């Protein structure tokens, strides 16, 4: 789209002479090559904003973090009448330069606003946002600064505090567990909030903590078998409630909870609705991190021309984090949890983030 078709074909001829000869031999593959796939770029004039969205590893379909962002995008597309958005995905083990190039590709192809999902885009977005001052950028989970960067950050520790309290109220053995995906500062925020919440209900409660992998191995976010083993260990040693902040590995935690007749706490989305049907019964609540709301809000503000740069913190007060009540298993403790929630909102309880 940046060059004419003629030069594009010339370049192809030079480099791909071998391939061409081959395609001719291959019969039908030659004819299908007649239409270069550049049609998408010159699509019909957009009605609304052309949103470009760059996912972290996993992309759309991870049933967790990236999917939440995708849900926000889908909602905005339907309600705000956006043009066809473009979604790109990160590859495993890529360099910062490749992340940067992905954002640049979106910006220079005319996508505006551009949303980066995940803190890994921190450095990349700073550089690219400076190159495209007229494009609006947003980044989830990171505080990278720039005059045209909006930061969508969450108070995961506050939401985790509530489910920690819920776990302590539900446990019969005064023994609970936490399974983290990867041992990074972000997930430690979940752990810390959970621990504080549980201890505020029962100061002497026993809490098992296990991380599935250490950086730079981010496999812990996508390894249900590991999640299952870790949770089984906790249930075997006497825990009866386990909270998972392990992305795609969470499914294994739920299976272990089911096998051990224990309880589990979901994360990010309301997992009593999104997890595999067979295990939904053990998920008595989930810590909601409303990335979808944040993405939608940002896109709405773009549509209304009221985008503000800098951080928007989605905490308990703003309704950006919360606990879920699906299934009615927290009805008996809901009053207590709401009391804690109010105290955090009013500032009577401050949950440390680190």
């Amino acid at each position, binding site marked *: 789209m*940046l*060059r004419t078709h003629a*030069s*594009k*074909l010339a*370049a*192809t001829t030079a*480099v*791909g002479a*071998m*391939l*061409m000869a*081959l*395609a001719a031999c*291959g019969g039908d*593959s*030659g004819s*299908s*090559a*007649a*239409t*270069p*796939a*550049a049609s*998408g*770029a010159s699509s019909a004039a957009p009605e609304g904003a052309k949103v470009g969205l760059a996912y972290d590893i996993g992309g759309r379909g991870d049933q967790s973090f990236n999917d939440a962002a995708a849900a926000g995008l889908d909602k905005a597309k339907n309600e705000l009448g956006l043009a066809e958005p*473009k*979604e*790109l*995905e990160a*590859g*495993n*083990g*890529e*360099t*910062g*330069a*490749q*992340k940067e*190039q*992905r954002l*640049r*590709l*979106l910006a220079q192809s005319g996508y505006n606003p551009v949303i980066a999902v995940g*803190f*890994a885009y*921190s*450095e990349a977005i700073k550089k690219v946002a400076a190159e495209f001052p007229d494009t609006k950028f947003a980044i989830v*989970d*990171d*505080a*990278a*600064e720039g005059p045209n960067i909006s930061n969508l950050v969450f108070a995961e520790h506050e939401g985790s505090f509530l489910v920690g309290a819920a776990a302590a109220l539900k446990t019969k053995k005064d023994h609970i567990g936490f399974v983290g995906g990867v*041992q*990074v*500062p*972000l997930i430690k925020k979940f752990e810390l909030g959970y621990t504080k919440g549980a201890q505020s209900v029962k100061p002497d409660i026993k809490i098992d903590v296990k991380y599935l992998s*250490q*950086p*730079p191995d981010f496999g812990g976010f996508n390894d249900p078998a590991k999640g299952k083993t870790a949770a089984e260990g906790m249930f075997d040693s006497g825990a009866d409630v386990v909270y998972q902040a392990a992305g795609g590995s969470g499914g294994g935690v739920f299976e272990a909870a089911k096998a051990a007749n224990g309880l589990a706490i979901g994360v990010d989305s309301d997992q009593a609705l999104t997890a595999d049907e067979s295990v939904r019964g053990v998920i008595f609540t989930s810590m909601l991190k409303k990335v979808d709301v944040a993405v939608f809000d940002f896109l709405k503000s773009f549509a209304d021309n009221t985008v503000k740069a800098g951080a928007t913190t989605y905490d308990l007060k703003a309704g950006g984090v919360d606990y879920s009540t699906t299934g009615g298993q927290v009805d008996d403790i809901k009053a207590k949890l709401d009391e804690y929630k109010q105290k955090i909102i009013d500032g009577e309880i401050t949950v440390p983030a680190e």
Partner: protein
Amino acid sequence: MSSTFADRLLGRVRLGGLLALAAPLLAIVFAALVTSIVLVLTGSPPLGTLALLVDYGSQPRTIVMIVNLATTYYISALAVAIGFRMNLFNIGVDGQYRLAALIAAAVGGALVLPAPLHILVIVLVAVAVGGLWASLAGLLKVTRGVSEVISTIMLNAIATGFGAWLLTTDRLAVAVSGSNNIGTKPIPPSGQFPGFSLVPGTQAKVFGFVVIAVVLGVAYHVLFNRTRFGFDMRATGQSEAAAVASGVNVKKMVLVSMILSGAVAGLVGMPQLLGASYSYSLDFPTGLGFTGIAIALLGRNNPVGIAIGALLWSFLDNSSDILDLEGIPKEIVIIMQGTIVLSVIIAYELVHRYRLAAEQRRVSRELSTAAPAPEGAGV
């Protein structure tokens, strides 16, 4: 004239004349065919896809990115190739470079030195850490006979755990302000390796480390083809018994080449560290060591072949994003890379077999026209 599959796989048996040309051509044709079939099956036009890749890949900024990433890949593949020459499979390049980059980054961030010295210290630390880490596998092999394949894979896992332990705010890391990322203290400008504006039409700079990579490639060639040490290494790799008979200390050679491979592996993270990120953080690129194995196979352990392989691999990696933008799944690039490696291996093996068969036919023809061989000599 007999050779094992491993010999042929690792490029230790040379092809002469037209055959040397036939193998890569066959590989390209085969790779193109398989990739085209996959593209047609998934409903994307093969030529259009290639045009997109080439068009995007030939933009100035993308060219810079391709060269930069290829620099990293090249060093990684050289590290692997050094082991291959000795019949050592150093699967541990990945762990070696990650640990080396982490510790070198921490040292670089903590020191204040004048410019050239600062860079030199960082690079030497990386080389030392890489070599030391690899020497563990070498020592295990020469003292206890542990296969380096097993020990280096395990050392990768240990390097990951050890690195994670080091990269916490209690030890080597500092929090990146306002971010969920953590990394080592950034290396000050005196320790940063300056880049060049090599490609017109873009402000992006080519890593200065590309020079080091070229020097390494030349050194690799000279070492293996022009020195006694290189001869001993190749001899040991081809036949340990013969090497021992001619007075080579095989254990020493194993240990030295393992350390050498690890020392070069220590450099793998340097282009990225000293040319772009200046800090080892949670998002430092991983898996470069494994890419190096594929590229070393692709380049058949030849320094020029590896360079071509590294550039090709980097081109595919860096151009793939454009496919996503146009609605073609970019995973097709991974299929292409895998196909290319397989094609090269298969094509060379086919050509070798063809040559062997042709030679046997020629010999039997000559024998049958010459005087009948004495009995029992036909074994």
